[in-house]
């Protein structure tokens, strides 16, 4: 049996010590009527067999030239990141409740908190939440707790649509409502005019996504000042890579955003079909006791030596039970370890270069693509490292044709934003893409569009619309 070390001698000696005749006797307190029969499961595989199976499964997924972003970004991860984060001492350690036996994890988390506080321009960071979307839900709960009267939160409509759904699933049961402010159909950003309808109303917070889901940059300063003038707190949703070059939420407007959250994945976590990633959260000092999740503090030991420990634990479920700030217990510790190593390896200049190179690549890609007749950029406002293009044929059709060439050409926005009419594609080219990669995309797109406009022959080959692929 895998991973069970007992020899037959051990087994007999142990049963004798217990005074039991057989292992089965140890289950004699379980009513017989409840006992399970044999499980209907596939037979056990040894390590070689399971390796073969998993290698086949991986090979099935293939290798692609990827231009999809939309909240999860393909960045180069230095080799050192996972060689160190994968060490057993990090990988197989428990939550650092026994501080003396967990100084490695605790100091790493303290360094992480320090880096995130500085990156977001806020006072304090927690030690992570599950992912960006659920971190936003926690930020909404936090803002509502701090506000005390309002149970409504306003958000720019350019907030990632799936994140909006996640927020609703998590906070809806507490009677908290999410209201959105529409984006400008030309610029792709939120205009001051559309805010006026919400003036003088009681909202706990305004959520500002910078950039928003279209990659478009919002007027974060003006939005922050407006919201805080209305007595709302500001929740910034930001991409951590972008903070290498974009203004920190703590510097938005006159007073700075109150809470910043985001998806930590770009900081050293592979795409991995969606997880594990981690959510980060930072806030102003005055809100620290409303913050959910674990927090590490620096202190001293009996001999006055520097040391680290979990602190402010009275906010948490294991002490406050039904009155805790959240039910969160386990977070994403290992992903944060990787992120801390990633940020240390890149430093401020490296992170700025990753952000700038990703932005420059997307800019060049958009230039190359929009040079093709029938391909346009949808929104006019400036963007960061991601943009929406429109194509004449249905987006899904174009993307399928690109995929046949090994290219994942972006995300068809038809499902998330039906108002865009089914021809919009969200594209992203991070620093991982070479000039040749961009050219390859542009050449294939040009050919696909040209071929389609040649006549009806192609449309007959169009896949059945009912088919998923």
């Amino acid at each position, binding site marked *: 049996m895998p991973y069970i070390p007992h020899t037959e001698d051990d087994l007999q000696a142990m049963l004798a010590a217990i005074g039991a005749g057989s292992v089965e006797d140890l289950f004699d307190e379980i009513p017989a009527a409840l006992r399970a029969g044999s499980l209907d499961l596939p037979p056990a595989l040894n390590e070689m067999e399971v390796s073969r199976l998993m290698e086949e499964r991986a090979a099935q997924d293939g290798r692609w030239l990827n231009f999809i972003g939309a909240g999860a970004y393909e960045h180069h991860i230095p080799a050192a990141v996972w060689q160190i984060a994968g060490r057993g001492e990090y990988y197989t350690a428990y939550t650092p409740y026994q501080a003396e036996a967990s100084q490695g994890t605790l100091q790493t988390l303290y360094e992480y908190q320090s880096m995130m506080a500085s990156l977001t321009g806020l006072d304090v960071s927690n030690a992570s939440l599950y992912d960006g979307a659920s971190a936003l839900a926690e930020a909404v709960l936090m803002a509502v707790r701090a506000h005390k009267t309002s149970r409504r939160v306003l958000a720019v409509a350019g907030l990632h649509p799936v994140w909006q759904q996640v927020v609703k699933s998590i906070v809806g049961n507490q009677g908290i409502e999410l209201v959105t402010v529409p984006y400008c159909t030309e610029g792709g950003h939120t205009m001051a005019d559309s805010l006026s309808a919400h003036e003088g109303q009681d909202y706990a917070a305004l959520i500002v996504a910078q950039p928003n889901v279209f990659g478009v940059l919002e007027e974060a300063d003006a939005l922050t000042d407006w919201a805080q003038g209305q007595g709302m707190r500001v929740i910034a949703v930001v991409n951590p890579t972008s903070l290498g070059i974009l203004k920190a939420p703590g510097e938005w407007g006159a007073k700075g955003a109150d809470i910043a959250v985001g998806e930590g994945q770009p900081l050293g976590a592979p795409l991995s079909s969606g997880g594990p990633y981690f959510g980060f959260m930072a806030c102003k000092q005055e809100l620290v*006791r409303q913050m959910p999740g674990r927090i590490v503090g620096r202190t001293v030991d009996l001999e006055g030596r520097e040391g680290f420990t979990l602190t402010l634990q009275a906010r948490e479920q294991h002490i*406050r039970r039904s009155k805790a700030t959240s039910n969160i217990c386990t977070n994403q510790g290992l992903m944060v370890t990787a992120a801390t190593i990633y940020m240390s390896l890149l430093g401020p200049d490296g992170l700025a270069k990753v952000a700038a190179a990703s932005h420059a690549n997307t800019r060049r890609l958009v230039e190359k693509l929009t040079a093709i007749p029938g391909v346009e950029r949808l929104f006019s406002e400036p963007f960061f490292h991601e943009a929406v293009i429109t194509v004449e044929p249905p987006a899904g059709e174009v993307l399928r044709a690109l995929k046949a060439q090994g290219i994942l050409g972006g995300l068809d926005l038809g499902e998330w934003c039906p108002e865009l009419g089914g021809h919009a594609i969200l594209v992203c080219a991070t620093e991982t893409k070479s000039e040749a990669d961009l050219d390859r995309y542009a050449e294939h797109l040009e050919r696909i569009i040209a071929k389609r406009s040649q006549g009806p022959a192609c449309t007959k080959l169009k896949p059945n619309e009912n088919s998923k692929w």
Partner: protein
Amino acid sequence: MSIPADLKYTQTHEWAKREADGTVAVGITHHAQEMLGDMVFVEVPAVGRKLAAGEECAVVESVKSASDVYAPIAGEVVAVNADVEGSPEQINQDAYGAWMFKLKPDNAADLDGLLDAAGYQAVVDSEAH
């Protein structure tokens, strides 16, 4: 430590003291702070808040526990002790001196319905068993 005879008490370990100006100061007892350990944080109610008797209105936290504080009698919060908020260890050092907030009672006679020192001593004794 003996339980001061000039204060009134609750089953939930608050003390209440009638001040000269007719307000009532509220804190937690020496026994309560002993059970909780080193205080690290105190949250007091907002001035102007109207409290019902027995309503949760403040929180005291030690490193590994947190406890709600209940209003001993009904009334309006007229003052909070910023010193105790700033240095919660005062509760450990002098529980009966470290008041947390003062109430203007709805009915001053309500105070008479609370436990006296002997009554509270009985509560403490019963917990020891």
